[in-house]
């Protein structure tokens, strides 16, 4: 029976003693928690803490080995997500499950019991419009999904779940892909939903301020167990981080002072197009020196991705020049750039930075297959590759059974550590790090940032692209806010106030045409 007649504060769903074992690990170890109507109950935990498993159990994608789920006090068995949906549990996945070529409304009604017959689009549209009005979503129903921003896609998923009658909404990393203004909008909508006595369960690995901002209760997981269960108003950022990681976490990094050396990368008036053929990068100029981190701060979609790809040799420049060590490499392919000492850490770890079906060894080889030291007569030196992989696994504390495991078996944080380890092990003189800590938990973020600082100490020139202003300001020596493909200035970090940078990221100051003084 679906969830019905609840009032604010009633327990709608309970998990009691949920245990799930996978070969070699206990992903969930006797987990108890409860969700109440009208509350936001955040589940917090690092990558690999068992969040995903728990989420899948609550949505019927996995069955627990022990323990049970109770909806309004009655034990239920979810054999598949369909059972969960029928009882009023909805889920918004982190990786969008929408059909890009279909319109918003077609996506929303897909899978709805009523859509099996001839869908009455007029009536549906009115009903969905009403949901939009109530919760403050603004979406063009006729737009195709591929035309939407990340925030809008997420809204479509939420609407889809609500239209299906969800009373409990599980949100997987709801803010990880969103730009700050979109996050604000989402949080506002979520608050209205709780007023209607919906229960929301966001699963979050990082962005502790978001947790503190919106949730009523927090359950913290670590290694499959509940380590803390508290009301949010009793929590602080530090206390939550400590429960998650199991130790104190330093949020402010010490600024690393390294003498600035000669320029490694020089970019002159560079322009490029995005995948749709529209100008995405419009004449940027800058240089990056040895022992320096240049931070590019911006809301995603302002040309950072295109810039990174052009610098890595994966996208053609339309105009302008790229020089490394004073030599023009604008037309040089990516292979030659790797050989010249460039290291690129892509933002897309799963589709670009790694090959899921390849072993960790073969993934390490992605940056070494062209290296004469790792092959002989065209045959891969597997002994050497194995040794290097083992060294990287231990140096970077990558949680894995060994070098023969596949990359897709790694959690997000461990995968990023592997990519970072592989790229940095080449001792690149120029590092392009695109969103290196996006989606990582507190512990992994700290690790990655320290590794970048270590590379800086070894006199690498680093271009850091990030959406996280705190990160940019604490790591960089100079900051360049980017807006619609143009730099709004290049400021030494001491002169960059967080409000100024934030305003420039939003396009409020005039762009600086000349770039910088050389």
């Amino acid at each position, binding site marked *: 029976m679906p969830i019905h007649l609840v009032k604010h504060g009633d327990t709608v769903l309970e998990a009691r003693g949920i245990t799930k074992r996978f070969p070699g690990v206990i992903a969930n170890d006797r987990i108890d928690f409860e969700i109440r109507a009208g509350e936001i109950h955040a589940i917090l935990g690092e990558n690999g803490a068992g969040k995903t498993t728990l989420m899948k159990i609550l949505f019927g994608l996995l069955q627990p080995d022990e323990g049970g789920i109770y909806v309004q006090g009655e034990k239920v068995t979810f054999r598949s997500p369909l059972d969960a949906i029928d009882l009023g549990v909805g889920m918004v996945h982190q990786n969008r499950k929408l059909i890009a070529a279909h319109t918003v409304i077609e996506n929303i009604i897909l899978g709805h019991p009523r859509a099996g017959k001839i869908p009455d689009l007029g009536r549906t549209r009115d009903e969905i419009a009403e949901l939009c009005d109530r919760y403050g979503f603004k979406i063009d129903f006729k737009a195709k999904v591929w035309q939407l921003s990340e925030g809008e896609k997420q809204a479509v998923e939420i609407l889809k779940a609500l239209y299906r009658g969800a009373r409990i909404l599980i949100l997987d990393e709801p803010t990880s892909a969103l730009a700050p203004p979109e996050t604000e909008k989402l949080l506002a909508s979520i608050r209205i939903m709780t007023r209607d006595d919906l229960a929301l369960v966001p699963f979050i690995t990082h962005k502790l301020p978001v947790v503190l901002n919106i949730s009523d209760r927090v359950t913290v997981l670590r290694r499959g167990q509940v380590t803390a269960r508290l009301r949010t108003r009793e929590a602080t950022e530090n206390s939550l981080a400590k429960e998650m990681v199991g130790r104190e976490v330093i949020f402010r990094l010490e600024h690393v002072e390294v003498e600035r050396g000669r320029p490694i990368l020089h970019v002159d008036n560079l322009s490029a197009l995005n995948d749709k053929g529209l100008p995405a990068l419009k004449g940027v100029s800058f240089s990056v020196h040895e022992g320096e981190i240049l931070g590019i701060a911006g809301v995603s979609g302002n040309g950072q991705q295109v810039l990174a790809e052009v610098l890595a040799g994966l996208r053609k420049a339309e105009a302008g020049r790229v020089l490394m060590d004073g030599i023009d490499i604008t037309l040089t392919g990516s292979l030659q750039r790797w050989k010249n000492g460039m290291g690129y850490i892509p933002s897309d770890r799963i589709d670009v930075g790694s090959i899921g079906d390849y072993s960790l060894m073969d993934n390490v080889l*992605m940056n070494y*297959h062209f290296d004469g030291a790792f092959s002989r007569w065209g045959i*891969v030196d597997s002994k050497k590759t194995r040794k290097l992989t083992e060294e990287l696994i231990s140096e970077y504390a990558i949680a894995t059974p060994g070098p023969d495991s596949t990359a897709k078996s790694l959690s997000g944080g461990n995968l990023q550590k592997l990519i970072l380890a592989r790229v940095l092990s080449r001792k690149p003189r120029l590092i392009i790090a695109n969103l290196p800590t996006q989606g990582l938990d507190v512990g992994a973020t700290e690790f990655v940032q320290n590794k970048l600082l270590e590379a800086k100490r070894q006199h690498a020139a680093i271009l850091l692209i990030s959406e996280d202003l705190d990160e940019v300001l604490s790591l960089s020596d100079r900051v360049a806010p980017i807006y619609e493909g143009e730099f709004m200035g290049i400021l030494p970090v001491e002169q960059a106030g967080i409000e100024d940078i934030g305003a420039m990221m939003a396009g409020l100051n005039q762009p600086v045409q000349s770039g910088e003084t050389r």
Partner: protein
Amino acid sequence: MKLGSYEVKLEKKAKVTGWEAATISLLAILIGLALVGLIFRQAGVNPLTGYRAMFSYGFLNEFGLPLTINRSIFILLCTCAFIIPMRAGLWNIGMAGQLYGGALGAFGVALAFGARESQNPTVAPGFLIALMMLGALLGGAVVGAIPGFLKGRFNTNEIVVTMMLNSIVFWLVAYMIKEGGPFMGGGGEGQGFTLSQSIRPPTALGGPFTIPLALGLAGLLYFMFAKATLGYQIKAFGLSPSAAKYAGISPQNVTLLVFILGGAIAGLAGYHYFAAVPGVSKIPLNYGDFGDLSFYGIICGLISMGNPLVAIPFALLFGGLTNGGRFVQGQLQLGYGIDYALLGILMITLVAFQYFYRNTVVWKKMEREQ
């Protein structure tokens, strides 16, 4: 699902061992044969009699076996030609055109050195044999390079291009060997000229030397995909083109290369059957049948999941069954096409049973509920 006091469930599994895969394939073959047994019965023939005749001709008979082996080697080469692009995530449906290209290349070389007009070519026979093989490799590679280049440069659909080339090269061969064509043989039977005894390639243990060559090639390809940097790069591109590009692997180059290699090997298949198999030694009238036969390379490559060594027994199976099936059809006076029905059903069961590579059946005694 419940069966008595047992619960039967399908569970996903991560890995399949070689033995499991072999067992699953064997089971699929047995079930496929059992299904075709129904067709035999329908035709009024005892399935066991039918199969006994089919297998004994296909695999044991002194006349049938060499034919089977020659066909199997042909299929194996076509499988290798399919597998190389397949590992790069690309579909080579053009083995037919490529093997015709190989045949044109080989016989074109022979023609150029006077092998059509005279018993004694203008260069040493051994040298000409080597040149003919080279011509076959080149001819296949050229036909293969076309879809490879178009795919890499303009992202055209390689399936469409290879399919269309099959037709183009088919008619090119017809033009060459039929009335007045430069490759026309004496007597005007509409087939190509026959190679003289001196430039027929050597045999090994009574069979054409292309048998050990093809087996060696399969082993070499296996090794390439397991150990070589080139194999690594091809597989990386096949698994994730964007990741391969990130790693400095050029999509254009890989695409062109796999089609050139695949085409060259298909060209060798043409050389094998038309020049090396004893008793053929020409582009025959029914050369189109070999184009059809080359399509077994696709199914063989898919069933063996791109593993050239695993493809060997499957190539042998298909080679024997096409051969034995045709024989049985004639001997037992069955309706037209029973050999095709058998092979078609076998392919379906083999592909369907691959489901069990990723899923396993679990039996569990149910606990009695209180």
